[in-house]
């Protein structure tokens, strides 16, 4: 019997990757549409997918503007998290005493109920983009600190010995050994933070209101809720999820490029 190469070296076909999730999506949407129509569920409770699609098309300009506004706050917050989180992880890694003294307060950022603190942010930073960005920062910074610290603490001790043996300076050790070694962990922290930043921005918008005179997705969700426009609310939530996904994919792609350069597992 003739054996093809495909039999000895199985390949993953594109449709086998994309097919299952697409099929799941189609089935769920059809079941949802059918259930709403057959059970005659009021539209203000659960809108059918067709109504959500109509809202997406009819209010596209408003929703696109809201998405851009939220994206700006989330990106700004994520940027702050990346810089401050990585630097904080680095500082904490310098000594165990420093870590013991400061880590509990970094952990506080993870446990602080952002909805309760958001009004304070408006008081301190004023309504708008700054409060939204700080909210996104507070929600997303801890994973960056924790993962940076864990990555730096996990550096191969024998390589540390080697650098000591050759009298390497602290800066040399940091840039030639510690940071490259910690890159996969830092990338993991950034990926988690990217999704959280969007959540933080939307929570910030609930309280901080309009950002630079424009409504973000958080405001759109609140307005749609007050008008019982559940279709618009669903459309805004979908866009918020897509925004989080887009930021995640962008961070994932960028980190994969850097990790490949450093021959680290992607």
């Amino acid at each position, binding site marked *: 019997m003739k054996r093809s190469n495909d039999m000895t070296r199985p390949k993953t076909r594109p449709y086998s990757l994309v097919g299952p999730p697409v099929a799941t999506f189609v089935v769920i949407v059809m079941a949802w549409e059918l259930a709403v129509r057959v059970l005659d569920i009021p539209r203000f409770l659960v809108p059918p997918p067709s109504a959500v699609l109509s809202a997406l098309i009819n209010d596209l300009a408003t929703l696109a503007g809201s998405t851009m506004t939220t994206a700006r706050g989330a990106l700004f917050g994520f940027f702050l998290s990346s810089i401050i989180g990585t630097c904080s992880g680095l500082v904490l890694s310098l000594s165990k005493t420093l870590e013991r003294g400061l880590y509990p307060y970094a952990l506080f950022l993870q446990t602080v109920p952002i909805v309760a603190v958001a009004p304070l942010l408006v008081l301190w930073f004023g309504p708008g983009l700054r409060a939204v960005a700080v909210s996104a920062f507070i929600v997303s910074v801890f994973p960056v600190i924790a993962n940076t610290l864990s990555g730096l603490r996990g550096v191969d001790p*024998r390589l540390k*010995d*080697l650098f000591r*043996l*050759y009298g390497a300076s602290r800066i040399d050790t940091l840039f030639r050994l510690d940071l490259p070694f910690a890159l996969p962990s830092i990338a993991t922290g950034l990926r988690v933070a990217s999704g959280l930043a969007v959540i933080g921005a939307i929570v910030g918008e609930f309280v901080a209101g309009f950002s630079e005179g424009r409504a973000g997705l958080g405001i759109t969700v609140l307005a749609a809720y007050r008008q019982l426009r559940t279709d618009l609310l669903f459309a805004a939530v979908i866009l918020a999820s897509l925004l989080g996904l887009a930021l995640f994919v962008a961070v994932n792609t960028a980190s994969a490029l850097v990790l490949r350069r*450093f*021959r680290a597992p992607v």
Partner: protein
Amino acid sequence: MSSPGGDAAVPCVRARGLGHVFGDGTVALDGIDLEIEHGAFVALLGPSGCGKSTLLRLISGLETVSRGSLAVECAHARAGEGVSTGIGFVFQDAHLLPWRTVLENVALPLELCDVPREQAEQRALKCIADVELGDAARRFPDELSGGMRMRVSIARALVTEPPLLLLDEPFAALDELTRQRLDERLRDLWKRRKTTVLFVTHSLSEAVFLAERAIVMSRRPGRIVLDRPIDLPFERAGGIRTDVAFARQTAVLYEALERYDSPENAPV
């Protein structure tokens, strides 16, 4: 034998009553009296956990001495030009930086000692050629076999031209044939460079083939229970492993190891 890196009258390593106690109070080494002359090739044998690696770390300065005295003349001797350290260290695993090529890994110690890049590359390439990896200089560690990675690690340890080379079971994870080939290369390198070598191993035949002198340690707390020369010709080809004289040397070491392998036989 010439004595690179130091005065021949002063031993390269001298320990008197050397001991080491870990942070948890465990006594790792006790009463080690040892002298290693310049240019010697010494094999260090002993049961697992007897303190062989700790002794290497003490000599290299990676651990501090708890008891007794230790003078490492080679550590103060001038290594290669521009390099401050006089000790090369090869660990059990290669421990290479995966994001650096073979050349960049080997040149790393020189970079850390601020040797100009061009000069560092030239010296690294020479060391890479010495371990017969010239064709792999631009490859990355994940593209090499285990044996090749260990050769890179040895080249990295040699690139600073250290008067003292410490090797901690460098070939333990390799298959027997690869290990024998690397042993032969290492002995050739030692003969050419006349570096002082302290080589930790669990393999009796490896110790006999490589070294001019063997030291056997007892169980923890590690003490020296046998220190004797290896009575074999200076020129040793691979075939020597089947000689009667080789087997006799191995048997002596085996006897010492077995005798002191149980706690009740540990020397007082």
